[in-house]
């Protein structure tokens, strides 16, 4: 009993810190403080993922959940300056109502979780997913799920990313960039960016058999772009014009073409021939990494770059060139 509560102690501390950080982030009236606490919350969550044997997620959380979300939120704080906050007062009664509602719902969800999880570890899909691993072309089970068993989810997820980025592009122009960094920072960037790119490549490659994969790699690549932008490269390492469009499309396009391509000799959609699946997955993931990185960097830039032409611009260009 004693020993069990001792092994529970770190978990208890982690859980309490999670809730405490969440509470602090959400109840803070100072936005900046809230955002910083939220990033800390994300990092703590990454530790919890590691604790729960989910290293892929720990990586992703650190890179995407805490890292990129944090960067996006932090840079969004810049926009808040000068804006008029119109914080309406919520009446005491509705506050109580919401609290009561939240309490009841939390209890209900908790009750169901208790009922379903108190017993021995449930089988669910674990056994099946792990036993099919040898047919999936990769040895990292999470990558197998993401790019083989449930590849369709991932395809649509890439479409979600594309949609969000198009939204960002449509809504407005990008933020002003940063002034050219000094020599010290430039020197750092010279080292940091190549290192990040190498890391991204490594994560992409290693994803087949160990924690990692397109999303973590894409986020790392995007981080390189963000660093570049902070150093004064407004484009954040992105290409312009048509090439930008191609880099956004590449991931989904290749994914879709592979998915459709394998049907030519009688397979079902996304049914890779077993011998090819490892390489096909790697190809798809490489393209996806590029697209994800481009998308995330565009999201960070916060709007439409000048190089993103409208149809009218293209038409005008044609007239000029004639």
């Amino acid at each position, binding site marked *: 009993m004693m020993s069990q509560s001792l092994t529970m102690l770190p978990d208890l501390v982690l859980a309490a810190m999670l809730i405490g950080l969440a509470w602090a982030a959400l109840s803070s009236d100072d936005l900046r403080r809230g955002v910083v606490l939220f990033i800390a919350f994300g990092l703590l969550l990454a530790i919890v993922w590691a604790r729960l044997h989910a290293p892929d997620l720990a990586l992703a959380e650190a890179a995407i959940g805490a890292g990129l979300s944090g960067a996006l939120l932090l840079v969004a704080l810049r926009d808040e300056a000068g804006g008029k906050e119109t914080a309406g007062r919520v009446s005491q009664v509705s506050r109580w109502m919401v609290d009561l509602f939240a309490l009841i719902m939390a209890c209900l969800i908790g009750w169901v979780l208790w009922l379903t999880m108190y017993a021995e570890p449930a089988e669910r899909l674990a056994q099946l997913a792990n036993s099919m691993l040898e047919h999936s072309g990769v040895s990292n089970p999470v990558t197998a799920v993401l790019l083989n*068993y449930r590849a369709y989810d991932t395809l649509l997820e890439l479409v979600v990313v594309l949609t969000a980025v198009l939204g960002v592009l449509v809504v407005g122009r990008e933020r002003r960039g940063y002034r050219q960094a000094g020599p010290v920072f430039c020197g750092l960037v010279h080292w940091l960016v190549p290192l990040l790119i190498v890391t991204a490549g490594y994560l992409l490659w290693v994803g087949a058999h160990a924690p990692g994969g397109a999303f973590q790699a894409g986020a790392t690549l995007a981080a390189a772009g963000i660093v570049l932008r902070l150093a004064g490269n407004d484009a954040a390492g992105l290409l312009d014009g048509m090439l930008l469009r191609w880099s956004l499309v590449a991931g989904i396009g290749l994914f879709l073409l592979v998915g459709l391509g394998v049907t030519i000799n009688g397979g079902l959609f996304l049914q890779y021939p077993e011998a090819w699946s490892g390489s096909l997955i790697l190809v798809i993931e490489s393209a996806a990494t590029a697209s994800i990185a481009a998308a995330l960097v565009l999201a960070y830039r916060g709007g439409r770059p000048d190089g993103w032409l409208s149809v009218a611009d293209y038409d005008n260009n044609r007239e000029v060139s004639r």
Partner: protein
Amino acid sequence: MTQVLLYALTGAVLFMLGVRAALLRDTVLPRLLALNVSGAGVFLIFVSLAYRGDSLPTDPVPHALVLTGLVVAVSATALALALNRRLREMDNE
């Protein structure tokens, strides 16, 4: 299995904390924070479902689902922030 249950329950608490804040706050950024915390709560539930003790291999399916959910959440956050920024610009114009 009590640790797993602990995390799952923490997930439920986080989810409702987020929902509560999303309902009570009426500016965009705090709401987005709240929704992200809510999402983290849901993800925590998924991941604790996947964990089957130190000896058994984990269930990779929820991990993949969470990864997907994470990316979706970031995308939506980015879009919301862009919209918010444009609105702020219009305020200032």
